């Protein structure tokens, strides 16, 4: 495997807070000061009441897998080196629907999971779904390749 290939890293500025939180091991999302709506994907205006006062807060990251897949095709040369790559759509108990990497391919629809926010090798925060409890080792090869050296903690 060549080290030259990197996962996608282009993000808009509002995501920098997630990158920062990943270094602290925190799962954070913007929450509306006025109506308490939790926002995902992150944005600058509340989707519910259109208020512009959103505060990043730590959110309980437990949820359930709504659907999952193993990607066998990708537009990213990095991921093409590591197919198949398992991803899922998670419904957080807190409300939002979130796409995340799956820690292992065996996780399936209906499984309870916990999302963690980890730094990838670009220093970007990415969400990973672990079995509820959050202690399992990340098994998916593609995912291990994209996390930084503290990946196994």
């Amino acid at each position, binding site marked *: 495997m060549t080290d030259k290939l990197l996962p996608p890293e282009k993000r808009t500025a509002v995501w920098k807070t997630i990158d920062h939180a990943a270094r602290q091991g925190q799962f954070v999302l913007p929450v509306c000061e006025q109506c308490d709506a939790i926002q995902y994907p992150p944005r600058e205006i509340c989707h519910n009441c259109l208020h512009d006062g959103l505060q990043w807060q730590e959110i309980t990251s437990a949820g359930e897998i709504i*659907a999952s897949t193993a990607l066998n095709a990708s537009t990213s040369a990095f991921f093409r080196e590591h197919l198949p790559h398992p991803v899922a759509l998670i*419904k957080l108990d807190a409300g939002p629907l979130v796409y995340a*990497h799956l820690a292992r391919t065996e996780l399936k629809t209906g499984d309870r999971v916990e999302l963690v926010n980890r730094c990838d090798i670009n220093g970007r925060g990415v969400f990973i779904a672990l079995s509820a409890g959050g202690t399992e080792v990340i098994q998916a090869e593609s995912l291990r390749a994209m996390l930084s050296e503290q990946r196994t903690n």
Partner: protein
Amino acid sequence: MNRKPNSYEGVALVSPVTIDYEKQSDKQAEWFIGRALAELLSDSGLKKEDVDGIALSSFTLAPDSAVSLTNYFSMTPRWLETIPLGGASGVVAMRRAARAIQAGDAEVVACIGGDTANAESFSTLIDNFSGFSSNAVHPYGAGGPNTVFSMITQHYMDKYDVKREDFARICMSQRDNALAASRSLFSKPLDLDSYLNARAIADPIYLFDCVMPCAGAEAFLLMSAERARSLSLPYVEIMASEELYNAYADDDIHYRGGWAMFRDNMYSSAGIGPEDVDLLHTYDDYPAIVMLQMEDLGFCEKGEAARFVQSTELTWNGGGLPHNTSGGQLSAGQAGAAGGFIGIVECIRQLTGQARGNAVENADIAVVSGYGMVIYDRCLSSNAAILKRGSA
């Protein structure tokens, strides 16, 4: 949903035009759009100066848009619309243009969807499709729309007991249709074994569940029915049409679309029901999405499309419900934004007796539906129109 749009009476769709699809092209989007425009003129016998409105959809024309074309093609239209709605663009172009005709803002509108395709254009498009998708979907494996639609498809299969063999019915019948229409980028029929044994793209989506990106254009003209008659052009009228955005936003995952919300209105405006429809053209980015439209447009009960496609002939000459008789995007190809126009153009062709080798017998009424713009976890635009053969 009780509010109904005003009637589209008096408006005619004429001159169905397709610029042959190419898997890849060195030519610019302007070439495909310009060829479509030239074909519209030669088919209708009109002069460039007669076209005083343009409604355009294109992804690969960027950073240019419809206004750039007025300069490129030396035209001075008094009405202009750029419609960035992907698979929903054709019906929207028709609706906007129809109102312009009725209001007198334009007399002849060229509606064109066209794109080029090269090695980079497809990945550039899907990697940057929307802010939400490039930030919150793309980093998770860069699977493009396959990420989103594999999950929608899996959920739909689980919820309604749908098998890949059911999707195969749609994909195989469309291949037959495409071959009859002599417009497939594929050269031979699709059999069940080939369908089932194709390589996985994002389970449960396999190769033949995906459209083939390509270059090409689809186009038609709108004018008053009176004008169409005076030009002796065979035409199609709009019996009813609706559009809706971000419908059922509270569903955790997509299994029904805006069609289900507006269909009663639409059929009641037209004074017909699904049983009166001679052919159906759905937006076929994936076969599960075709099934959603068959259900939500009332051709079968919710959750029953798998049984419906197994018991109904979908080919142009099968005597059942001729569906995507052009071959659709699954078998003719997805020429970018032209994919949003392929249905209307095919319906005009069928209803005016201009079908190629795939003419549906006694085709008087067609339903065409559009679907587009996967901004995050589903497409947000849904629309449909009921079209009928114009009275001479």
